[in-house]
């Protein structure tokens, strides 16, 4: 059975001997990258620099949250706002694989720039097993290119360090608990962020819509869990569908987007079943989304697909 304490001890030792000089960690503020940062920080101290890139596709209040986390962990950190660059790189792009690859490459280019300025040779990533499994290669089919694996440019010069390469999320959470990190129970959030929760072109306007919808889904589900109405899902969020339908608001016709609610139960993300959200909770979410987003969204649906045949994120 997986033992977090043994893993921490052995991995820290190995990282201390493997990494010479400075290392940069791609820090999203999720469980994987935070655990990774804590381990590498334990191993090489302030020779580690955490870099957080705001892609413009982050959740509501994410930037403040991430800054606070990096401070709490006492990391040397850089916060880079590249949102405009990402928005223009994704302009007109509709294909999910293209989106993922553009985002993956952009991350690396930002890290490379920092690496040159700070004389850094190593790139640490919180890659876990499902990332490289689903990214495919050789015999294995590509389900989706995770930005940190399938999205890596071929000419990358930084040396990759991925201490969590063979672990699944439940094992990473065990390490987070052993290290007493607050992030341990946080729900997963994909590296490409809200860009893959918008089907079709991820414009700034659509991003604003899905960000608000995600926030409502998160808030209402967490509230329902606190009231004991349902179990906390493994992951829960909103997806914007570029499908417009007709609605009626105050005796007037409206023609707006559709939002899909997605919530699943899982242990390791390799198989998932959709969450049983009580109708009363779905009702509150639906009303809040349509009333908050008014003419932008006038229809809400609930995704009842398991994995397989679906995946958790829609893209």
């Amino acid at each position, binding site marked *: *059975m*997986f033992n977090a304490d043994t893993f921490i001890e052995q991995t820290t030792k190995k990282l201390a001997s493997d990494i010479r000089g400075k290392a940069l960690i791609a820090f999203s503020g999720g469980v994987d990258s935070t655990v990774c940062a804590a381990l590498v920080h334990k191993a090489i101290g302030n020779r580690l620099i955490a870099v957080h890139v705001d892609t413009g596709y982050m959740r509501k209040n994410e930037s403040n949250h991430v800054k606070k986390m990096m401070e709490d962990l006492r990391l040397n950190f850089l916060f880079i706002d590249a949102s405009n660059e990402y928005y223009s790189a994704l302009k007109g792009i509709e294909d999910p694989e293209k989106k993922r690859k553009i985002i993956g490459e952009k991350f690396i280019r930002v890290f490379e720039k920092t690496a040159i300025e700070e004389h850094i040779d190593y790139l640490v990533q919180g890659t876990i*097993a499902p990332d490289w499994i689903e990214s495919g290669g050789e*015999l294995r089919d590509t389900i989706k290119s995770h930005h940190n694996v399938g999205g890596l440019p071929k000419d990358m010069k930084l040396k990759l360090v991925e201490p969590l390469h063979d672990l699944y999320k439940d094992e990473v959470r065990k390490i987070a608990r052993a290290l007493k990190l607050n992030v341990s129970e946080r729900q997963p959030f994909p590296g490409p962020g809200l860009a893959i929760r918008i089907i079709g072109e991820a414009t700034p306007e659509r991003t604003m819509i899905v960000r608000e919808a995600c926030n409502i889904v998160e808030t209402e589900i967490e509230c329902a869990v606190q009231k004991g109405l349902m179990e906390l899902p493994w992951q829960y969020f909103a997806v914007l569908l570029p499908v417009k339908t007709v609605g009626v608001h105050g005796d007037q016709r409206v023609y707006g987007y559709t939002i899909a609610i997605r919530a699943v139960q899982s242990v390791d993300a*390799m*198989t998932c*079943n959709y969450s049983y959200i009580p109708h009363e909770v779905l009702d509150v979410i639906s009303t809040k989304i349509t009333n908050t987003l008014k003419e932008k969204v006038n229809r809400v649906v609930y995704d009842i697909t*398991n994995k*397989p045949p679906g995946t958790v994120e829609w893209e």
Partner: protein
Amino acid sequence: MILRISLLVLLNGNNGMVKIFVVDNGGQWTHREWRTLRDLDVETSIVPNTTKLQDLLDAKIDGLVLSGGAPRIGRDGTLGNCAEYLEKATFPILGICAGHQFMGRFFGGDVKPSKIPEFGKVQLILLCSDDPLFEKVPKKSIVWESHNDEVTKLPKNFLLLAGSENCKIQAIHHKKKPFYGLQFHPEVEHTEYGEQIFKNFVQLCEQ
């Protein structure tokens, strides 16, 4: 990948009691099979399906899992060196999904694209109550599936152990050799008695 995994084997302090390797046929859940075995304190490693049988024998393995994978066994005949293992091995072999289909075809059965492919939750019905692979597994249980092809004709010398509504051949056992084939996926978290089935297979390998 293999190097990193063998490092983890060391990290997890296996006692070397049972050694079962996982042959990678490119499945999404190959690594899950490795993890399930590791969690059962088995000494395990993922190896490519091009590994020679002699290398497996030299490694003194007690059993082998043939993973699933994207290759369409219903359309294409090859799966690395899996044929050699099935032809010559005396240790237990558990074929899963594509591994199971390949085993079925190798021993003379038919494999064809499924009329109704299964993805996700399915009810498994056991047809044979006393096979050691299904010890402590009830007659009806939930298993998860993900397949486009299936074994449509039972190979000679094989027993049919289980089926489902839309796929009659879900589990098979060679009458004379310790070889098993499963169309469903015992390695995934959502298969109710998956870990029990793996435990039973590990016991077969211990003997």
